[in-house]
């Protein structure tokens, strides 16, 4: 048993945190996250240069990491800085490409930006409800359907699309030049796209892709949970700091016992969220990966809502303003619940085992 990071991972965490702290102050984040292209292309290049994408892929796929803990280290640092760069799509694509045994050098070097198209408006979280369908055409395939909130899709070069293929699911690569892509910014910053597939030409990446998709989703969940933990840490620290500085009726509001206890309860939930994220990271790739990913995403959903809402409330008006960083942390914490399965969806997944 050892809860210390390996030296390599600790170094990655430190480097990334320092880098983002220096190059990416929150004012800059707020600026770039809400204006097209909804991220900072220069920063993206620098993150790639730092080796962030290599850290997310295993050696056999050309990377230098790829375990649950590699993922959580990277995303916790991204979460602390509220970074809207399209790393999630790269991570999930990388895992699918690895499962397919496909070359991913273009992804890892940042030469090609990948996004994943899984979510549909009527199947926001459930792989088995995907309606997008693949049809064989000549040597290749065409896809029809609609993929929603493709994160990073507003700047992607290639979208890996999950579609029905025969009795199962397969993954196809779609070049954004061949398809109707509408990019947009999001409530919590960063960008996504609607991808309208209408007999769109596509290349088969992986047939029988259900397991690989589930693994990519689980990896994405570990990433989102770690991102949330990083964002919650900053939000909580900022709130406690504010409690020390802000005075009301002549004394720092941090002297009010009600706010103290609520700050403690937030801390408790953050530590619990950190724990279950560690567990999900440890189990990623194993037989219980989905179970623990569901547990983690459920707990993160609850903790993140508590932290977001309580931080705003305990700040009073100031955290309701665009200028104050906490408002953006709060938005991210709330909105990530709807990525890759929300609180209730994942609770239901955990419950499924009980009836047996």
């Amino acid at each position, binding site marked *: 048993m050892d809860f210390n990071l390996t030296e390599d991972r600790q170094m990655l965490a430190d480097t990334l945190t320092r880098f983002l702290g220096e190059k990416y102050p929150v004012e800059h984040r707020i600026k770039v996250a809400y204006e097209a292209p909804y991220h900072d292309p220069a920063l993206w290049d620098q993150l790639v240069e730092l080796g962030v994408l290599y850290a997310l892929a295993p050696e056999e796929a050309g990377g230098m990491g790829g375990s649950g803990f590699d993922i959580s280290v990277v995303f916790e640092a991204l979460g602390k800085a509220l970074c809207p760069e399209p790393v999630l799509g790269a991570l999930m694509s990388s895992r699918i490409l690895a499962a397919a045994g496909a070359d991913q050098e273009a992804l890892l070097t940042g030469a090609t930006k990948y996004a994943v198209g899984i979510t549909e408006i009527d199947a926001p979280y*459930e792989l088995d409800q995907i309606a997008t369908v693949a049809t064989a055409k000549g040597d290749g395939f065409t896809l029809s359907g609609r993929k929603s909130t493709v994160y990073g899709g507003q700047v992607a070069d290639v979208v890996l699309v999950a579609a029905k293929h025969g009795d199962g699911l397969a993954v196809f690569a779609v070049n954004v030049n061949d398809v109707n892509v*509408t990019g947009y910014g999001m409530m919590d910053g960063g960008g996504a796209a609607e991808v309208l597939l209408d007999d769109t030409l596509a290349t088969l990446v992986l047939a029988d892709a259900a397991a690989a998709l589930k693994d990519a989703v689980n990896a994405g969940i570990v990433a989102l949970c770690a991102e949330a933990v990083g964002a919650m840490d900053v939000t909580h620290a900022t709130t406690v700091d504010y409690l020390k500085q802000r005075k009301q009726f002549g004394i720092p509001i941090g002297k009010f016992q009600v706010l103290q206890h609520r700050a403690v309860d937030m801390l408790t939930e953050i530590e619990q969220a950190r724990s279950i994220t560690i567990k999900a990271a440890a189990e990623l790739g194993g037989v219980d990966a989905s179970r623990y990913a569901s547990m983690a995403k459920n707990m993160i959903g609850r903790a993140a809502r508590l932290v977001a*809402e309580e931080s*705003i409330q305990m700040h009073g008006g100031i955290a309701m303003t665009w*200028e104050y960083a906490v408002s953006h942390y709060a938005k991210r914490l709330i909105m990530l619940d709807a990525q890759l399965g929300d609180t209730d969806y994942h609770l239901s997944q955990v419950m499924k085992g009980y009836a047996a």
Partner: protein
Amino acid sequence: MDLRYSKEDLAFRDEVRAFLAEHLPEEISSAVRSGGELTKATMEDWHAILNTRGWLATIWPKEFGGPGWSPVQKHIFEEECCRAYAPRIVPFGLNMLGPVLIKFGSKEQQDHYLPRILDGTDWWCQGYSEPGAGSDLASLKTRAERDGDEWVINGQKTWTTLGQHADWIFCLCRTDPDVKQQAGISFILVDMATPGIEVRPIKLIEGGHEVNEVFFTDVRVPIGNLVGEENKGWTIAKFLLTHERTGIAGVGFSMQALEEVKAIARKTMRGGKPLIEDPLFAARIAQAEIDLEAMKITNLRMLFKAQEQGAPGPETSLLKIKGTVINQELKDLARRALGPAAAPFPGHVSEGNLMFGPADTEHNAGRYFNNRKTSIFGGSNEIQRNIVTKTMLEL
């Protein structure tokens, strides 16, 4: 014990309902329904329609142009307005300054300002909060110094709602810096066109512009703009804080929100079925609905008590606390029901370019975030709990 409205009240309800059906323009109610910000023109148009009917200054006495309604009638009117998705009446002139002038203002002030509020000549805003003095009004710092026939005002107000539209602002200013706390504060009316006033927008969490900072630099207004006695502004502030809190539970707005949650949950698919058939989500709705049904009665009980006793009691703090919690929960459910469809920034994706979920839900996430304010402003829920502790629990 009888929970039903009297025959007279039912007749009144029908009258209000008929009026709204006939006179509330469809473009106004859809603007309300969509949840985005209303334009100044929309709000003014609606005020004018109500004013024509004599139903604008709902809480003013008849002799000043109010309809002379009982608390129950006011409640019914608000309930019906919510039901029809009419805009809220902008409260600063009508529900705040109006009653203050009627109680504390001079005959000249009443004669001059009240008709202009009614006919929309003057749009008022409120100058109470300051940076560093939120729930704690007694520590406010904006100074008004007497210089001959004028007040010279210096300082800063914040959270000035819809100040960007305002012609006038009513301010609490410190007129005697040597006395403590609440003493030494005066209530002064200021024309926003006076030199030295600067209004700066505050962008809110969801990106909207509804509040402002107002800066005062050597702003000179006539001595006669003082309302009530000099240094007795705190009396007016207290009057306003306890006045007219019957609508504070926001029951009508929560009923709108509940209706919306159900509508979204019927349209949204999860696991191949409408979300409303998902037991976990349905349970969340049901729990909120039960809380709201209870709140309806709690609200009526307080209303009845206010009607019997002539004034609302400290129980209204309970309405504020629970009312905001219920409303915020419902806004959370709407956002939660939409799932990823709530993600786009409002205006980015709409029916015009790409159909993305029900188009009338584009403001949903924004409204969830914006509504976090309701448990903060007007005395935060923490302040309300402090009030109940002192007044009802006597701890």
